[in-house]
């Protein structure tokens, strides 16, 4: 139990800390590295929630796939100029403040819930080993979305090729 919460707080702190750093770094590569760190921390949270399969999916797809793409593009796109310029836009403080206020509001809402939320209720104690279960449910109950996702990925593939290729 105690190990559980230690793990959670460790990963949560890591995730939030890296997320803040990600948003505030000037250099896009540094941002990407901190985002990777956030993603890994989130993967850790998944593991702590006993979702092994998603833990692995998060690392393979997000960190090993999507973020590689980001890093690749950042390196491809000349950022020398960006490094020297202002990193936030002019109205940034307004937007930031607004978002913070909204966030604070949400915290208040979540806190004030009490009886209205059954979200605080005691959760299930353990989850069964889950790679197989995820597979079964994915291919039975969520079969149709799975198929639609194939169209989505096809569209993304065509889109990426159309956009990034010099000559089609």
């Amino acid at each position, binding site marked *: 139990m105690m190990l559980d919460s230690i793990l959670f707080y460790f990963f949560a702190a890591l995730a939030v800390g890296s997320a803040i750093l990600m948003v505030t770094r000037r*250099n896009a590569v540094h941002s990407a590295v901190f985002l990777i760190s956030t993603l890994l921390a989130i993967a850790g949270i998944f593991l702590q929630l006993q979702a092994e*399969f998603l833990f692995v999916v998060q690392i393979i797809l997000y960190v090993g796939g999507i973020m*590689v793409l980001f890093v*690749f593009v950042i*390196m491809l796109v000349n950022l020398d100029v960006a490094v020297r310029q202002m990193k936030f836009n002019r109205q940034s403080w307004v937007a930031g403040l607004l978002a913070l206020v909204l966030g604070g509001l949400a915290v208040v809402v979540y806190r004030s819930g009490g009886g209205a939320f059954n979200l605080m209720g005691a959760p299930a104690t353990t989850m069964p080993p889950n*790679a197989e279960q995820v597979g079964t449910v994915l291919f039975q109950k969520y079969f149709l979305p799975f198929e639609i996702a194939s169209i989505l990925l096809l569209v993304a593939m065509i889109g990426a090729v159309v956009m990034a290729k010099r000559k089609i």
Partner: protein
Amino acid sequence: MPFGIEFDDIRQYIAPVIYALVIVAVLPLMAGYIVLLERKVMAHMQARMGPMRVGPHGLLQPIADAVKLLLKEDITPKNADALMFWLAPLLSVTMALLAYAALPFGPAFQIADLDVGLLFILAISSLGIYGIVLGGWASNSHYSLLGALRSAAQLVSYETAAGLALVSGLLLGGTLSMKGLVEAQDSQGVWFIFVAPFSFFIYLIASIAETNRAPFDLPEAESELVAGYMTEYSGFRWSLYFLAEYANMIVVSGIAVTLFLGGWMRPLSGVHAHIFGLPYELLDLLPALIFFGLAAWCTKLALRQGEQIQKMVMFLFVGLFVVLGAAMAWSLTSTSLMPGIHGAFWFIVKVLVYLYGFLWFRFTFPRYRFDQLMKLGWQFLIPLALVNLVMIGIGIVLAQQFLWPLSLAMIAANVVTLIVAFWLVRQGDKPSIVVLPAEDELPAAGPGEIR
């Protein structure tokens, strides 16, 4: 009980820690000796001797190299991104070592038998790319960055093919656990390489590309990019990259061995031959005999050494081999220890055989051009892997639902894959056109001038 420790906990927690320590301790040594092996193999293939000075037949060369590397000056370029420059090699080696957590060296010798073991190893080894990419970027040098970009493209491309090849192994084994995969091969009585040869073949090629080995070593092609992403590295950090590369080689070999070559199973594990009325199987005597033979060879070498210290070291080796051989022989008498120790032996032997393939390829094939590399990956390996995967799926359905014999179903499936492979090769025979990137597409160099 937060911190109360019971006996089961010791087995549960202490044993993995010991395994991990052993791996971390032994791995650099192993890497060093693989390098020696590589140089020896290369030398013999080129009809020369290779390292001969330090120790008999250069057997102590790795230790000398390690000392040299550690004493070298560690240089950080002025315009490098200090944090990333420091982080990148560390990342590389960490990820390489982490992957060992799920690798089963033997039935009992595994740090953690994860439910999603294979995926875990894939996930962790896919992170190794950051070490290369960030290192190349942080060096703030054109060569490094080009190496890094090449590496990113190459790894992402070949990861797909490797993953698809592994999935067919998973289909056959029906589990993601590394241990379960070996057990599946045990219970089905066949190594998956014989059922799915194309998967093994594809994985072999893709794994070479993933470890940046020749003939796919474009990220560090010395004749084009000096040393690619490693150009600006020196001393200890460079040796970390080096270690990571060899650790990764062992990992991919381990995956291939586990999935396709029967893991820790003895070759011919179905054959039970007892001669001379011995209670042991004849083939199980082999490891002990091999070690005793090695010990004898080393003794012969040791007697020929002139230097006193070299003689001592060689006798150390003799002692080591005698001890190992004795352990092999002794474990035969204990049914509880035998599978573990012999399993580890066979696993390591198979890994070495696979690694020998790596070395062999390196000195046999010329390096690919980058567009050829991409073409091979995208237009040959990935389509072939897809077809192979589908065919194996069909074969399994035929075997399980329509009760065909597995061998027949798989032969049919593989013949189709073979035809497709030939067709793809013919398609690829057409001359390729090299498109050089336009001037403005060349990437910027690293993190920029200002710090």
